[in-house]
Structure formats: structure tokens, C-alpha cells
């Protein structure tokens, strides 16, 4: 069995997925919890984008990829402020 991700890994994972557009930013007013299913789907999309096996869990390879040097821009556009939105 893959080593269970530590709480710190999970926290890093959620922050990382939110920062790069795989998860929507939390809404303090709505205080919605991230459902495990959504987190799993977000991890899968990230794994597919990074060319990793799509396990849906924060396995060591995925956490290692999250530590790689990279560009600050999000991978899923529209989720971060760098995109200039055209007014409809």
C-alpha cells in the first residue's frame, strides 16, 4: 500500500490544487467542506495534466511533483486572477 499522506501533505495538496486552479477557492461565508470526491477528482485532473498515473490520491509521486519548481500561473485557467476577463 502507498504510504498514507501526512496531514501536512494533505494540507499542502489542497493549497497547491487551489492555487493552480484544480480546486475552487474556499468560500468562508459558505463554510463548505471540500468533499472527498471533489478532492479526488481534482487530484486526478492534476495527475492527468502532469502525466502521472491517475490514482486520485496524494501518493508520493504526486506530492513530489507538487514540490517541483514551476510557473506561478494556474494550470486550469479562469480560476485565478491572472486571466483578464472579457466583459460579456
Amino acid at each position, binding site marked *: 500500500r502507498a504510504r498514507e499522506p501526512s496531514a501536512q501533505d494533505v494540507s499542502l495538496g489542497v493549497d497547491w490544487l487551489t492555487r493552480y486552479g484544480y480546486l475552487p477557492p474556499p468560500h468562508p461565508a459558505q463554510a463548505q467542506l471540500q468533499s472527498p470526491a471533489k478532492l479526488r477528482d481534482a487530484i486526478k485532473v492534476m495527475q492527468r495534466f502532469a502525466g502521472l498515473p491517475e490514482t486520485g490520491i496524494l501518493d508520493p509521486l504526486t506530492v513530489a511533483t507538487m514540490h517541483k519548481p*514551476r510557473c506561478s500561473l494556474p494550470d486550469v485557467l479562469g480560476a485565478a486572477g491572472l486571466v483578464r476577463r472579457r466583459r460579456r
Partner: protein
Amino acid sequence: YALSGSVWKKRTLTWRVNSFPQGSGLSQETVRTLMHHALTTWGAESDLRFQEVGSQGPTEPDILIDFARAYHQDSYPFDGQGGTLAHAFFPGEHPISGDTHFDDEETWTFGSKDGEGTDLFAVAVHEFGHALGLGHSSAPDSIMRPFYQGPVGNPAEYRLSQDDREGLQQLYGRAPQTPYDKPTRKPLAPLPPPALPPDSPPQPLPDRCDGNFDAIANIRGETFFFKGPWFWRLQPSGQLVSPRPARLHRFWEGLPAQVKVIQAAYARHPDGRILLFSGPQFWSFQDRLLEGAARPLTELGLPPGEEVDAVFSWPLNGKTYLIRGQQYWRYDEAAARPDPGYPRDLSLWEGAPPAPDDVTVSNTGDTYFFKGLQYWRFPKGSIKAEPDSPQPMGPKFLDCPAPTVGPQAPRPPRAT
């Protein structure tokens, strides 16, 4: 590749290095030369031109390049050595649009043999891709991959990958060839033969807001809308990769040129293969065409010569449904054989329209029947359409307005 949706309207862009890395062994002249080569990489594949300007100019350049540390007046502070390396802003009217920032706490190198440090040229080419409007790409050989891939070789000889060229050409068109062009770099690989006879008139692009798609499929989380020899892609975030359709044959490598219309498409569970249907045949793809030859639909249990309107795989039982008119067949993927007792009447799917354009299952597990400009939604695991079906496709899927006129399903009387 993903497109940011914004492009420069002009073709000559100005740039200037506003601040230089402190403490890295690179001289200002080397940094300027590397930036020039990085921009030229994109210019060589388009009709874009890049003009360096001095700091005395009347206006700020389009692309202002800075080396900065930690918080530096935009909402993306750097994080010291490693982690985030650089970022750039997409094209636009805002003064910050196009500006490119590098983390000054990185050890920027050029031509380093020992792999130490971060190659400035490679990161610059990537960030200028953003400054021109490209998002990140998952293509293995793309410079637009989000993660640092190491040096990319000699800046004077580096060429963009096919994926990056196509992304750029989606935004700015193909680079014009003139008899005066001297090849400054290795000649491009010969282009594949045109899918259309050269003497045919250029085809007008279809309007996605007209709906009436030939096929619709959820493929690896993205929704593909096929229409004639074109298709659009909708990302999981709900954003269209590009409002312009892409060419069918340039993406689906190996699909015979004579296949003009995809009648149905779906991604098969559990192996994730993609099947495209046209006429009484289908082709199966992984990343490329598999097994090469077309396969007859009789393999999936249909009578000889029969065609399909819609095909989808239903996650609840892992079976494949093939719809034609008012009837459908079912194929058991696990047992690799058609289920007996078919075809059956489509009325089992309560509320479903006959002869749908296609059916697909969304990332949230709902089943959608599409026809014309409308969709019918069946909640996850249900074979009964939502009471408010059909709904207009435009606003939800295509970034189009809802049709103002047209047949609407009678609304159920409101409870008083």
C-alpha cells in the same frame, strides 16, 4: 495547450528589461540577449515582431521584464529558491498585461553543464508564451508545461514543439512565408498532406451557437462537440479551449481523410479508449488511432448496415448504449459481447428525445441527451429526465445566448 482567451491586436510588441538578476553570474548583456532569443522563438512561428525599447520611451513597453523578490506589488509573491520561478500576465489593455516577472532568488543560469541552477532561457520562452496568450499545456514536449523541464539547448537554434506552434497559430494565425524568408533555423518537418483537396474553396467555419452537433462526448473530463470536419472542446472548468473550432483530422491522428462526419463518439470504460462512429463503422483511439482499420458496427451487436445516432457508456453498469432513432442496443464491455434481447424501445429512458444528436455522461455522473439546441438531463443513476427538461444548450455549454424563439417543452403548470 489552453488558451487564455486574450490576444494582442497588434503584431509588433515592444519589450524592455527593467531590472536584472542580482547575484547571478549573468551579465546584463547576457540577460538581454537571452530575452531577445526567447521572444524570437515565438516570432519565428508567427508574424509577431518584438522591438526592444529604451527606458526613455514615451510609453511603457508591452512586455516589461523584471527580476523581483517575495512580495513585489502584484498578487503573486515569489517564495525564494525553488517553488514558483516566474509568472507573466496575459495580453490585454491593462498596463500590467504582458509583463513578465522572474524570481530574483533563483540561481539563474545560461548554458550550465552541471544542471545546477535554473536555465533562464527555458523559463523565459515559457513565460513569453503566457505573455502572448497561451496557458499551460500537458503535452510532454511542450515548453508550456507548468513544471521546470531543465535547459532546452542552444537559444539560437531552439524550435517550438508542434503543440506550441499549433497553440500560437490558433491565436495569431500561421507565420506567412515569403520568398525573402531565409531559414534562420532548421527547416520545419514537412506538414502532413492537407485533409482537403487543395482546390476546394476555404470552408466557412460553423457557428457553435447553431447547435445541431453530429456528436458530443466527454473525453478525459473535457466535452468535445463535433460538427462536420470541426470540433470544439469544453474544459472541466466550463471554459471553451477556444471559440474557434479545431480541425478534426489534425487532432485525431490517423482518422481517414474521407471520414467527414462523426455521427457519435464516446470514451469507453474502463480502458478509456475513445471510439468515433461514422456510417456503419467505428475507429478506436488511445492517443492515436489503434489497430488502424475501421471496425464494423456488427461487432457491437447492430444489424449489418445499421448506423448510430448516439453512443454512450453508462457508469452505473459499465455498459455501452447505442441509439438509433427510437430504439437502442446494449453492449457488455466486461463480457465483450452484445447483450441479448435488443434492440429495445428508447422510451425506457423516460423523456428522452428520439434520434438524439448524441448522449454523454458529465463529470458529475449525470446523463445528458442532446438534440438541436437543447439538452435533456437525467440525474446520476436515473433513467427519468429532469422535469424541467429540455433546457437550452447555449448558456450552459457553449458560451452562447439561449435562443429567444423556438419550440419549448410545455412547462408543467405551477402549483398555486
